């Protein structure tokens, strides 16, 4: 009796996973290895081997560091990323501070408008920005008229910095606002109680406590700008790393090792930036609100503070909304050149977009839906395996999937080209030229985000709900189907919409992989349109369509999350 009862638990422990779970884990691992690890490993392998052979060499890197163009590109990429962080901070700090620390009318509106830039691909905004801020854009024409001088907002690297900082500052705004809001009121009151007030209080208590949020946002901005391909290309800035990688591979050829070397440098820079911010954040996860108490006390502004505050906010919002407004104007403009506003308006561009170019919209819908679908299936499966099973090595699935965050789109694109070009279908077409590779690349790129959404959804479900189902006779798989997935539905849907809407405007990876116009998604079409002056009108119209598509999706996901939380009685 005793012998049996001691033996059973140890056996149960040894076979903690069901065969189904093991098979699922292996299938996911195979997928990730095939479409993420293998392409990236190929890129790294090529970078470290002699061209055409498989001998290990560092000569490619030697060439890279010896070439003046590449060193300048490397420096430019660092410079542009760092300056974008600086300017994004300049835009985000006042908005975050004013809306969280003061009784501020329209704080919700400011926070919402602050997100707007994110729903437009930055390269789309770039064109509109050129019309407003370019050498012969509205602002400079007016400046020249009134004061007789022009400002080089959009010249060379300045343009990239300007566009990127406006596009990506919401990452800092979101993180910093959340951090400020999450500071327990008692933290501030304790300081006041001990004699601290005003700016000293901010400097010594509030800012240090919000620092982790700021750093998280800032590092994200840095990485995104460093990896971005389309914006510099569209602004005709070629001496940065991502454009160089793209140009090497597309113009010189897939066999040229330089593109791969640059890719490795991009990965290293990405990983380094993330590692640095993670290091800086280590042990500083000050979730100070856990013991009740609201956020920071909001102060009422004095009249002068109000004038200053609203002035700053309106100025920043005007700047932030400029690309959207410009795009909208451009999409209706007949001709807009050398004048502050367009000469006349037309609907012809929209006609063209929905007519001959509707294939872009159709492709985008298909690709983004498929990518989003793959992401949530993988996301739910990985989240379940990690959080609910004792499978050995299950964390590896999470790490592998999340590692996609550190892989720049252009690198993944190059990896896919190199890896799958040699793989041919029975009829001789290379795998890399099929549109399904675009879908796979998009799915891999967005997987980390969908995975986080699925994690969050599953973590909110009490294990006892599942145990109750098993107690009443449901098997593991039936419990998942009847209890877990329905309860996760809101989170899953939100994950899908996030994946879908960001995949819909992704260009870095797809720029590499699109082989024919008929397979191209919307972002690619936009890019092609925007290359020529004549294409700008229809390009802008297509851009407006993209923005509306993403905006609708974002709003939808918001609604879904809120509703599912309400339905589950989670509130807040």
């Amino acid at each position, binding site marked *: 009796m005793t012998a049996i009862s001691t033996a059973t638990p140890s056996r149960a422990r040894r076979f903690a996973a069901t065969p189904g779970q093991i098979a699922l884990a292996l299938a996911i691992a195979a997928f990730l290895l095939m479409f993420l690890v293998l392409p990236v490993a190929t890129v790294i392998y090529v970078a470290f081997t002699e061209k055409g052979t498989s001998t290990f060499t560092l000569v490619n890197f030697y060439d890279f560091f010896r070439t003046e163009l590449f060193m300048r590109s490397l420096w430019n990429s660092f410079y542009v990323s760092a300056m974008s962080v600086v300017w994004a901070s300049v835009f985000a700090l006042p908005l975050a501070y004013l809306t969280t620390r003061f009784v501020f009318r329209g704080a919700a509106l400011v926070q919402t408008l602050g997100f707007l830039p994110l729903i437009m691909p930055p390269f789309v905004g770039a064109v509109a920005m050129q019309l407003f801020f370019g050498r012969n854009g509205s602002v400079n024409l007016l400046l020249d008229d009134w004061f007789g001088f022009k400002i080089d907002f959009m010249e060379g690297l300045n343009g990239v910095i300007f566009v990127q900082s406006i596009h990506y500052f919401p990452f800092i705004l979101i993180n910093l606002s959340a951090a400020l809001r999450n500071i*327990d009121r008692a*933290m501030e009151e*304790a300081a006041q109680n*001990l*004699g601290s007030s005003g700016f000293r209080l901010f400097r010594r*208590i509030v800012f*240090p406590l919000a620092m982790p949020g700021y750093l998280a946002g800032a590092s994200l901005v840095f990485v995104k700008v460093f990896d971005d391909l389309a914006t510099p290309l569209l602004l005709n800035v070629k001496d940065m790393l991502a454009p160089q990688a793209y140009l090497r591979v597309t113009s010189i050829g897939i066999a040229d090792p330089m593109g791969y070397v640059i890719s490795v440098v991009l990965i290293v820079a990405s990983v380094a930036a993330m590692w640095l911010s993670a290091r800086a954040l280590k*042990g500083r996860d000050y979730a*100070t609100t856990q013991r009740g108490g609201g956020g920071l006390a909001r102060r009422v502004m004095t009249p002068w503070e109000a004038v200053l505050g609203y002035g700053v906010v309106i100025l920043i919002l005007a700047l932030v909304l400029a690309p959207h407004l410009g795009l909208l104007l451009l999409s209706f403009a007949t001709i807009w050149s050398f004048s502050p506003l367009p000469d006349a308006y037309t609907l012809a561009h929209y006609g063209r977009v929905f007519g001959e170019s509707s294939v872009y919209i159709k492709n985008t819908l298909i690709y983004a839906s498929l990518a989003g679908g793959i992401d949530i299936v993988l996301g739910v499966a990985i989240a379940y395996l990690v959080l609910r099973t004792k499978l050995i090595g299950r964390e590896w699935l999470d790490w592998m999937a999340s590692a996609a965050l550190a892989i720049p789109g252009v690198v993944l694109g190059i990896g896919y080209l190199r890896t799958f070009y040699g793989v041919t279908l029975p009829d001789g077409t290379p795998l890399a030229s099929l549109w399904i590779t675009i879908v796979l690349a998009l799915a891999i790129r967005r997987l980390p985000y969908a995975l986080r959404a699925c994690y969050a959804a599953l973590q909110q479900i009490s294990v006892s709900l599942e145990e109750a189902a098993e107690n009443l006779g449901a098997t593991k798989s039936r419990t998942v189907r009847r209890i877990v997935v329905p309860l996760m539905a809101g989170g899953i849907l939100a994950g899908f919409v996030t994946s879908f809407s960001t995949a819909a405007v992704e260009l870095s990876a797809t720029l590499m992989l699109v082989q024919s116009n008929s397979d191209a998604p919307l972002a690619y079409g936009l890019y092609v349109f925007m290359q020529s002056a004549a294409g700008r009108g229809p390009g802008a119209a297509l851009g407006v369509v993209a923005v509306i598509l993403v905006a609708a999706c974002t709003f939808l996901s918001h609604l879904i999350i809120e509703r599912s939380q309400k339905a589950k009685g989670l509130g807040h």
Partner: protein
Amino acid sequence: MNAPVSLTTPAVSVDIAGVNLSYGTNHVLKDVNLAIEPGEFFAFLGPSGCGKTTLLRLIAGFNQADTGHVRIGGKDITDLPPWKRDVGMVFQSYALWPHMTVRRNVAFGLEERGVKRAEIERRVEAALGLVGLGHLAERRPSQLSGGQQQRVAVARTVAIEPKVLLLDEPLSNLDAKMRVQVRRELRDLQQRLGLTTIFVTHDQEEANSICDRIAVMNDGVVQQVGTPMELYERPANLFVAGFLGTANILKGRVVGSGADRSFEIDGGTRFPIAEGDRIPEGAALVFRPQHASLTDQAGPGDGALSLPCVIANREFLGASIRYGARIGATEVAVDMPFQSGRELFEIGSEARLRLSPRSLHWLSA
């Protein structure tokens, strides 16, 4: 032995006069008047939502009274901002800043006051020594246990030598065992510093065990102020009687007049009213379970009431046994000391409930 650094300042009084506070239509504090003596350990006691924390935060300056004044040591501080009040508050969540070490946390208030570096060091050492945490000065708050965090919060507050010490439910985040230990430490510390201290709690046992006097609050109104024993012995109204300890509260009405006056509860049982006792309008009869007893015979007439009753239930509480005795339709609680070997009353059996007329109170809501 080192020369002990004293963190004491002369104790001061706290006077709260005519304080009203509303949030919109929600009247949170209603004409609060309290005189807290210098050096007193004073408690605001009441259920959640009674306004006790609001009142404490008002003294610290985090809430502004609509009317009324707060005076500390005779000085009106009603319009001073929190950082100029010299009123040390220990927060319920402790509010230790996670980005600073224990030492930096404790030094903070002194630095804000522009105290000289050497003096800061001395007082930080003294404050940490006072709570016995000198050896943990370089730790971060997250590396401390709940009890240690609580002591750091106290040290941080007393380091500035506040005029008054405010404690906002300081024991609520500790487990039961720690709570008893820490409350003794708090009392001990308060005695050593001679600091006027106000303690907010919803736990009557906490307030009873360490406070000199208690203000019982409910619904924004101070119900009664007194020593723990006064409140227990002579509650001013039904709320205080019910909130502190267990009380039998019997509804009924006054019948008869003059010397024949008595209180008839629902069901017809009458309790005599002593001559000269004033019975407030709508009053109920109140007595404590341990002031009544049960016997199985009529007993000698020693002036005690003797009422027939039926035992309806029985709970073993450890030191005592609580019987539910039914008088007519009304059930009252009666506590009998538990002595092993002594026979118990069985459920359903008849007995007599003995009650001294002196332990009867008539209280209104």
